[in-house]
């Protein structure tokens, strides 16, 4: 079951817009699907990840400073949303 909160949904839309993904069936994307790499249903790679990191910083004021942070945070929509919730106030 796909129980996506509004932030997760918002992030999915943002990612699709940033990476110019036009034929994604958003209702089929699950919270814990891999976001980046060959198993990602969105088919996005490390170059796309970079643009997502920049866009997240611009839109939410949350930085992804290191590869470690990015690797962990950009695992799934759920981890990205959690990171933003936890760091938004500090941004």
């Amino acid at each position: 079951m796909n129980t996506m909160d509004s932030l997760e949904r918002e992030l999915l839309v943002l990612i699709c817009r940033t990476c110019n993904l036009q034929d994604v069936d958003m209702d089929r994307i699950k919270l814990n699907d891999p976001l980046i790499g060959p198993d990602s249903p969105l088919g996005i790679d490390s170059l796309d990840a970079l643009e997502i990191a920049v866009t997240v910083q611009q839109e939410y004021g949350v930085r992804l400073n290191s590869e470690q942070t990015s690797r962990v945070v950009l695992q799934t929509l759920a981890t990205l949303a959690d990171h933003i919730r936890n760091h938004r106030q500090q941004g």
Partner: protein
Amino acid sequence: MEYEPTFPHRQSAHCESGVVANLIRQRGIEISEAMAFGIGRGLFFGYFPFIRINGLPLVTYRSVAGQIIRQFSRLPGFTLQRQTFRDRDRAMGELDAVLAAGHPVGLQTGVFWLPYFPRALRFHFNAHNLVVYGKQGEDYLVSDPVFPAPVRCAAPDLARARFASGALAPRGKMYYFAATPEHFDCRPHLRSGIRGVCRAMLGSRFPLIGTRGIRFLAGRLERWPARLGRERAILHLGHVVRMQEEIGTGGAGFRFMFAAFLQESAEMLREQLLQDSSAALVAAGDLWRDFAAMATRICKERTRPGDSYDELAGLLRSCADREESVFRTLNRWAG
């Protein structure tokens, strides 16, 4: 029940600084990865069009492989044992002997042959560092700093990774700290780490290195579409971004890590100038990331108004200007 040795594994942003920090922590000295990166003079820039990787020019945003380890081996109280081998069996035998003596061992390996890497992430890079801290049966216990937790690797696979062939072939290279100081005070080494990076970034007469190298790349990059044609220009551009090695940070990661080192140093020395330089380097890192994001849009053919090779070259020149300003300030401070 079989005894399983433990190791203070901590995931890191960069394998060499991560391995050095983990090996030192195992000796009872608390040190962050950023501190190991800074004292080890890890930050650099070089553009070498005459060295080709997959037919594309070498761009590097960090110091040469092995520099951080070498730098620590020169510090008072640190004794680093290093060996390379011609013979695979001898190399594995020596690894077992050093492990039996109770020392975790750093290894240089080829990523392509490490089976615990997801297949999609295995590429031909022969300067990947990891720590082996034990052996159970035919499996080695491995602290690979790019993984969140320790992993296992079968002996034949590890042997193959230690003797991968090609550029930067590891030739079985292994190293471990045979001695470390009882108490290690970072403070005397902060200034020399900063000085070393400033010299590399500002002091080279060679125009392909440091801030001059960033400007040289800018000059080359803006001519790529005319010189190489659209397709090859995109290949070159994608390569520049991929060589930045950082998922989601666009190579700015090394700038951010050195900035973290400066911040830690500022706190240790109570030095506002280092704090300000840290903030300025973060700003330079953000600009690198903007460069990488625009380059990605061009490579992926989703450009926005204003995206162009000329704009990219302008961003690179701004990165060079900002970094030059930071390192000139730091250089005056470090003396």
